[in-house]
């Protein structure tokens, strides 16, 4: 569904913005997109309305407690969904069936049936979809170019390490014998102040489920091959919140991809003391003609000074245009009626891979990735 108007400015409805607002901010930063309204369902709890209202006020746009009315009355072209994870698909389905393009924060969903429902809605309506990702970071753009140019020949293995060196509440073992377990939603709401609330929602989610989309999207982009089987080990190794809610904060996944390609993923929220910066994020690619080792953080600039705060990363990423390039790409996909770099069908495959990995982590077996419905 191309619009044939390459200079057209697109108006976006923000459907809930309850955690760190990088997705709607990324959309708004591109000159071809403007935020027109924030909307959510009236029956949401107070904390949700408060955050939505605050974001709308910061951007000088209305907040409407009626999604259907906002979509009908604000002449919008797309919806940006950044709600609690379990509501992503439902809000996106409602937007897509209203004929809007959709941009969805990660994870796509905690349930594959919801992903399938969204894929059906998007494809039947012919609208564009984008699952927010990091595929346009400079190191990834370069890696993709090298692979596409045949620099390493035909790929036979791809590995990604994806560690966030951040804390997430009290460390494992911090809870006293008489203390109650940490409530997932309550602790995530509280974590909003330091930005460690990526898994905000009612259903507890591990790091694989919350952040797995990023490295798995790298593998998908660079290999072009779907994952067929996975084997995983998972652990709650660092954070009491994860222990109490029986979700991982550390995981390893073997990926057996179509065509005999082998992949692997190491992922974790490994704590602030485990790395001087945001965390080691690396890719190792092996091909018939060579190999490639990529540090996702590059380019970066190192800044050190006396009395530097511990939480300040001395190595600062620079030249990052991921958000702009994502939105530029999305606008062009609309203009030219082209596929996006990570649409909801691809996102559904990633969700299926994560679901299979979690099952493997429980069973200790190799698990087949569920095909689309």
């Amino acid at each position, binding site marked *: 569904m191309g619009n044939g108007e390459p200079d057209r400015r697109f108006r976006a409805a923000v459907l809930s913005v309850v955690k760190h607002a990088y997705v709607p901010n990324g959309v708004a930063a591109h000159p071809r997109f403007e935020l027109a309204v924030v909307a959510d369902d009236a029956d949401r709890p107070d904390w949700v309305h408060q955050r939505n209202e605050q974001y709308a006020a910061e951007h000088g746009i209305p907040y409407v407690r009626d999604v259907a009315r906002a979509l009908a009355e604000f002449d919008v072209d797309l919806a940006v969904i950044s709600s609690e994870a379990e509501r992503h698909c439902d809000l996106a389905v409602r937007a897509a069936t209203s004929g809007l393009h959709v941009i969805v924060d990660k994870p796509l969903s905690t349930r594959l049936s919801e992903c399938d429902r969204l894929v059906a809605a998007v494809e039947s309506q012919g609208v564009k979809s984008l699952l927010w990702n990091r595929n346009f970071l400079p190191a990834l753009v370069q890696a993709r170019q090298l692979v596409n140019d045949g620099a390493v020949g035909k790929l036979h293995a791809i590995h990604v390490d994806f560690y966030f060196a951040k804390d997430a509440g009290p460390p494992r073992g911090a809870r006293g014998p008489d203390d109650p377990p940490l409530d997932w939603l309550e602790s995530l709401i509280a974590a909003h102040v330091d930005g460690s609330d990526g898994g905000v929602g009612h259903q507890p989610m591990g790091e694989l489920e919350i952040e797995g989309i990023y490295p798995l999207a790298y593998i998908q982009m660079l290999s072009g091959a779907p994952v067929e089987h996975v084997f995983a*080990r998972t*652990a709650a190794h660092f954070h009491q919140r994860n222990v109490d809610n029986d979700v991982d904060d550390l995981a390893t996944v073997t990926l057996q991809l179509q065509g005999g390609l082998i992949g692997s993923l190491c992922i974790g929220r490994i704590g602030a003391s485990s790395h001087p910066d945001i965390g080691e994020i690396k890719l190792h690619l092996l091909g018939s003609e060579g190999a490639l080792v990529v540090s996702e953080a590059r380019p970066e600039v190192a800044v050190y000074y006396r009395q530097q705060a511990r939480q300040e990363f001395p190595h600062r990423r620079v030249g990052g245009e991921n958000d702009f390039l994502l939105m530029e790409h999305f606008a062009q996909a609309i203009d030219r009626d082209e596929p996006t770099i990570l649409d909801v069908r691809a996102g559904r495959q990633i969700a299926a891979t994560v679901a299979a990995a979690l099952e493997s982590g429980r069973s*200790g*077996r190799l698990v087949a990735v569920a095909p689309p419905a």
Partner: protein
Amino acid sequence: MPLRLALLGCSQAPRWARRLQRLDTVAVTAVADDDATAAESAADQLGAVARADSWESLLGDSADVWDAVLVSADRRDAVEAASGALAAGKHTLLERSPLDAVAIESLTDAARAATARLMVGGGLRYAASLQAVHQSVASRQIGQPGLLRAHRWLPTADAEPGVSLQGGQLLEEIDVALWLFGQLPTHVLASGAATPETGGAFVQIHLGFPDQGMALLDYDVLTQGAGYFSLSLIGSQGAAYADDHHNTQLLFRGGAPAGLTTAGGGCGRLGQLQEFATAISQQRDPDSTAQQAGSAVNVHRAARASLDAGQAFQWTGQAYESCG
């Protein structure tokens, strides 16, 4: 007085000559190789007084000039030679572990009977970088180990013959994993892909440990250029990164710069020999025990079985069995 060492298998003699310059507790006094020219050359390089063209001859005519033997990784008759040396009461170091846990157990019994010291493989542990990583675990700086990742990519010239895991690929990395976690894995999965351009195969081993630890180890042969090794260990309170990528210099000679890895601090083989000599002088078992070598071999065997079966294997308390 330095340990009087016999070197059995001389293909790596030039490397040993360089390494031994830094080790004054060991003197090579005898060498043996089926290739008499290689033995002659090695004797000259290492200053050995005795040379032999077989291990039988080394144990016979030259036995009184040496007290311990280093059985080089290139010896296909390593177990037989080690058995003979131990029967003669000689301390024995197998540079590389055989892929046979029963043989290792038999050698252990022989060593015990002869009151001789036996060390089997484990060389990678003694690389300077891995000693630092292990120290971070032993001192509890990084807390409980949670995730070990290692990439071992060899240049074609250094690749072991044979495809997949049959040549012992990743055995040393498995040994390091068991050493760092201090326990045996409960789950083993190996995955592989043929790489016709090198005549070998890429292989990856995934281990799960009882206390929720996990490891991913992969091996490949690069079609061209130098090799690469990277190891990271994520602990509950910190992490350690031993990564060639961090130790790479740039060479500009036109076009894109080439990356050159800076090595330093001695190699694992030197540390392995040093530990062997120290254990003998202190009349104790080496840190890297034959029993540990046998454990690594058992896990490696499970990985080979997993690769063949295409299934994960799980420890039942008696053996690793397919989860399929």
